[in-house]
């Protein structure tokens, strides 16, 4: 039988299968994000909200803390106070704009901190041996036994109100889910062939974590964390609504919602406005998270 292999000689292969420029995973993701119209729109809106919050002193028309009994509960469209005034006579638009600062901070900070702490714990649990994994995950399970709203309220109820305590309590609430997601991602990545190859190359553990495992876990974590920001905004507003979060007279959307509750009989539209702000912002983050997940779910050619 003729030896087929001698017919084919090894040759320097031309690069026939790829495009002109190398495209990294993240640049592909970025490209897909930019082409997704919904994500673009949402991103733009979010940018507006953030800019308004940052430049609140310029965007607001009045001092958010100053009210006048004479101007209580004016309706939308009142000249000078185009979104109306609240029950103490303060301009709602200005309070919304300043409130954006607090709400965004209360939304993003706890999630960011929880991602840092929870991500590290999840990585350790995923990579460490069985004992370490069990220890961490069982503690996480205990915290998972509390519905998040319940836990947030209980912690705040105990340690008191205030923006710092609110963020602390939310951070505690969000850390266990992030640990779970990170641990699950890490465990999956750890078993893939290229990690085994990295181990076989005698590289030290920290290099393997940093170059092989981490880059493949971060994406999933990012998607999840973004989806948590929306929830964080709602939860922190809810805590303020109950009197457990930010304290008056600070402008915060949840607080405004509560204060205006009595106003629904007098001026219902005005009472609904802070809620609208919460919905919009939270919606933006959720859609962003969805868009990110779709963009990252690339069915790569084999």
């Amino acid at each position: 039988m003729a030896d087929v292999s001698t017919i084919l000689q090894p040759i320097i292969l031309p690069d026939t299968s790829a495009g002109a420029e190398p495209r990294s995973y993240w640049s592909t993701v970025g490209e897909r994000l930019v082409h997704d119209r919904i994500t673009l729109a949402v991103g733009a809106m979010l940018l507006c909200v953030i800019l308004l919050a940052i430049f609140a002193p310029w965007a607001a028309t009045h001092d958010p803390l100053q009210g006048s009994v004479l101007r209580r509960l004016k309706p939308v469209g009142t000249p000078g106070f185009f979104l109306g005034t609240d029950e103490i006579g303060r301009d709602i638009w200005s309070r919304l704009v300043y409130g954006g600062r607090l709400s965004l901070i209360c939304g993003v900070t706890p999630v960011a901190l929880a991602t840092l702490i929870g991500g590290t714990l999840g990585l350790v649990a995923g990579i460490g041996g069985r004992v370490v994994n069990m220890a961490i995950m069982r503690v996480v399970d205990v915290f998972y036994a509390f519905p998040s709203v319940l836990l947030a309220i209980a912690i705040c109820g105990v340690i008191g109100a205030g923006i710092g305590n609110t963020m602390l309590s939310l951070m505690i609430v969000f850390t266990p889910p992030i640990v779970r997601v990170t641990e699950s991602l890490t465990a999956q990545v750890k078993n893939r062939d290229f990690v085994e190859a990295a181990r076989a190359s005698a590289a030290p553990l920290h290099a393997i974590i940093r170059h092989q495992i981490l880059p493949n876990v971060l994406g999933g974590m990012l998607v999840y964390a973004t989806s948590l920001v929306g929830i964080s905004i709602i939860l922190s507003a809810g805590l303020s609504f109950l009197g457990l979060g930010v304290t008056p007279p600070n402008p915060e959307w949840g607080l405004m919602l509560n204060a205006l509750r009595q106003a629904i009989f007098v001026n219902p539209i005005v009472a609904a406005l802070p809620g609208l702000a919460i919905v919009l912002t939270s919606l933006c983050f959720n859609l962003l998270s969805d868009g990110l997940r779709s963009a990252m779910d690339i069915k790569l050619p084999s």
Partner: protein
Amino acid sequence: MNVPLSSDDRGGTAQPLLIVRDLKKHFPAKGSFWRLSRDKVQAVDGVSFSVAKGQTVGVVGESGCGKSTTARLLLHLIEPDAGEVIFDGEGVGAPGGIGVRDLRLQMQMVFQDSYSSLNPRATIADIIAFGPRMAKRVPSRQAHDRAGGLLEQVGLQPSLFARRYPHELSGGQRQRINIARALALEPRMLILDEAVSALDKSVEAQILNLLADLRRDLGLTYLFISHDLNVVRHVSDRVVVMYLGRIVEAGDVGAIFRRPSHPYTQALLRAMPSMDPDRRTEASLLTGDPPNPINPPSGCRFRTRCAFAEEVCARVSPALDDIAGGHQVACHMMVPGSGHSRAGTICAGHD
């Protein structure tokens, strides 16, 4: 075989590069979490063989026979339960011997091409440079230059491929990267675990040729694991046949393929489809079902599918005995006085 000795050589030409003695690995079976059940998967159960310098030893067997586990045990990616691995005369992990880390600098593995054998987030150059940079502290620029050289050696143009990502490459190209990555640490031995199994036939031929050239140019030693008998026949000098965690036959490639002596080997060879229209695939010698690796049959593990099994096969495990100049078989039929009715009456390569 005249192989130029590498600069890292310790033992000389006569010293086998790799000696494996009585390697064992048992996994707790699923469901035995609380160790309530004593079920163990006997993945590798007493495997011994050796690989001479410059040789290619092929390891064949069906899925689940323990070949891949053996490969990982050699590199200590999984910790063995028992047995020793001796590399160029020095025991691995033994006091006074060679450490696992140093072993890995001399023995590397080429994985089966699957999407997950290359880090999807890294460039090709990064992937190849990772080992030298992290394990041998080679500076980044130098490691990347070397990566370019390796790419050329495996037949890929560095200017086109170095900055690409795995998902942009074809299967054959990815396998060349796998090989380049393994070579980056300048090993003396390569373990190829089903390295060509996932490739189209024409690509497979190219890769096999590449491997042959590399072996010649770099003075490498290969352990070639595959379930494809044709490929193993083509590349190996010696062949080891595994069944359910044990070696059943070992010998020179010519002896194994022309004079197979163990019933399992014979059955495997019978089942190989042939291009020759005069050779028809005959009925299989195998009877019965493939047994459970969790509770393997007592004595000879092949006896439940062997047409010649007798009572002695259930009582006594056959040892791997030398029957003729380096040809080893683990079967009672080949050993005179073993208690088997056909013992001693058969010559190597019986039909």
